[in-house]
């Protein structure tokens, strides 16, 4: 036992100190050692989330389908086949055919682009305006903060999808208006989370230091506070995409979004609904596509949060 205590090598620890030659220069230690960048640190943590990795791979696949969908689809998405209406899944038609004999699998592939586009564009708009409002609100405080936050309260006073329905009632149905509606109700959510980050960061020592060496407000906000809020914004961004896709497809299902010939998943489900008794597959597959897509974004967002948010470290 005393031997173990004496020599770390005997205790199973590796000793890097070479016996003969002199120690390397301090420079060499710095570059040769494992200095972890924020990226590799993030990657190391994220890699451990198996489910989030699978979800990430699925999202990459979705993007590939979104880009090449019309090319890889086995049939044209608007090609009717009146001899083959409401046919169940088979080798020719993997997901069966719909009430016009159109290949559902092809329509789902082509529809991927619509869902991703709606999700990404609406959340991008929400994040853009929400972040700016949140930074202004958190940094300047006072009446500006009060004004922006009251306005957020008002928007948040309407449950998400209801606000979207209200906006569509004004603008009229259609996919473009759905994007606007979904984007608007996301703005206060981003404004709030960015504001709370900004409030904390505003009082940190390094912002104080930057201010004392004469940094202007604009520089303080964008160079010092914004980077600190970025990880939270990224996490919410990913999580919101799932919600946005779900809301948009719900609106299309209700007849307020994409209209029937468009292969939007919610709209496909809505028109397939009438044939559910004879051909359940008409509704099963578009719904499955929505579910898996939203699930992937949610799992990916969860993984990101666990890897980026130090508060939730276990």
């Amino acid at each position, binding site marked *: 036992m005393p031997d173990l205590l004496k020599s770390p090598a005997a205790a199973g620890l590796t000793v890097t100190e070479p016996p003969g030659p002199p120690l390397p220069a301090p420079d060499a230690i710095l570059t040769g050692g494992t200095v972890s960048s924020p990226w590799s640190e993030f990657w190391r943590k994220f890699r451990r989330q198996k489910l989030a990795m699978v979800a990430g791979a699925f999202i990459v696949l979705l993007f590939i389908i979104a880009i090449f969908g019309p090319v890889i689809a086995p049939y044209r998405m608007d090609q009717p086949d009146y001899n083959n209406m409401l046919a169940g899944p088979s080798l020719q038609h993997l997901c069966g055919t719909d009430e016009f004999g159109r290949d559902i699998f092809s329509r789902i592939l082509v529809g991927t682009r619509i869902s991703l586009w709606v999700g990404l564009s609406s959340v991008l708009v929400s994040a853009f305006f929400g972040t700016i409002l949140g930074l202004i609100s958190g940094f300047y405080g006072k009446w500006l903060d009060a004004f922006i936050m009251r306005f957020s309260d008002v928007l948040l006073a309407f449950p998400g999808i209801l606000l979207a329905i209200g906006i569509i009632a004004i603008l009229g149905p259609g996919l473009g208006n759905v994007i606007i509606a979904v984007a608007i109700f996301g703005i206060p959510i981003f404004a709030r989370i960015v504001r709370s980050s900004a409030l904390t960061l505003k009082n940190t020592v390094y912002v104080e230091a930057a201010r004392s060496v004469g940094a202007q407000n604009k520089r303080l906000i964008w160079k010092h506070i914004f980077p600190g809020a970025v990880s939270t914004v990224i996490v919410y961004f990913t999580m919101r995409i799932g919600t946005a896709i779900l809301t948009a497809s719900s609106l299309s299902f209700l007849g307020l979004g994409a209209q029937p010939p468009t292969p939007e998943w*919610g709209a496909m489900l809505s028109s397939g609904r009438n044939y559910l008794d004879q051909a359940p597959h008409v509704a099963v597959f578009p719904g499955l596509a929505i579910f898996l897509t939203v699930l992937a974004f949610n799992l990916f967002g969860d993984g990101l949060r666990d890897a980026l948010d130090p508060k939730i470290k*276990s």
Partner: protein
Amino acid sequence: MLKFIVRRLLGMIPILFIVSILIFSFVRFIPGDPARLVAGPDATYRDIQAVRAQLGLDKPVVTQYIDYVEGLLRGNLGTSLKTGRPVAEEIGSRFMATFWLTVVSMGWAFVIGLLIGVASAVKRNRWQDYAGMFTAVSGISLPSFWLGLMLIQLFSVRLGWLPTAGFDSWKSLVLPSLTLGSGVAAVIARFTRSSLMEVLREDYTRTARAKGLHYNIVVWKHALRNALIPVVTMTGLQFGFLLGGSVVVETVFSWPGLGRLLIDSVAFRDYPVIQGEMLLFALEFILINLVVDVLYAVLNPQIRLE
């Protein structure tokens, strides 16, 4: 405590003011002439004038707003363009169906969500946890209209156990409330898990264990009580989510509630009804937020000190 409630009540006034202006302006946001739009494509000039008068669009804006608020205070929400009945009556006749649907959904969602959350927190990083959390994230990702259609297909069409549509008896409530509650149950499960896990790390939990109490007693009697505070708050806020979700679920199950009324009204451009419903939803939501805030202060003494 009273001071806190009064302050929160006063804080509602500016929000209510902005909400009332927003909802009042609702019809005026419509691009083009709303009266012409409502009257339809082959309306005569006189028809359009009549609709304009009915919507109150022929008077100065400020007068219109004062009339609107005055009407609101008397409980007058206008007249439905579709049925000609007062909007308050239209909404009143639908209210209970949505109320029951929401309450039953929330009831089972809370129980199931809590059980899954506790099981996951206690069996942390084991298969029970993974299964529970995967179920939860699936619940959040499920399109409710799809879930509803699949449940109808299975339990009503194939097995014939439950009705497919309408609201006649408690049996009618089963499938819609399952559909509506699944998302909320999932959110509650995730929240309970993280909240309970935090409490289980606290010193007093360890003390309770150290003095020899059984683990189950520590979890259910000591830890859960404190873990529930944020869960209750969050559950209250989920009511708003249910109000929104009911629009979709009521459409799937042909439920005679407020959600379907809203969709029908949007399709018909029945603006007074849409306005009335938006106002009701906003009021409900603001009120729930207030109750949740007060409840939170009652449950958690730390808040009152601020």
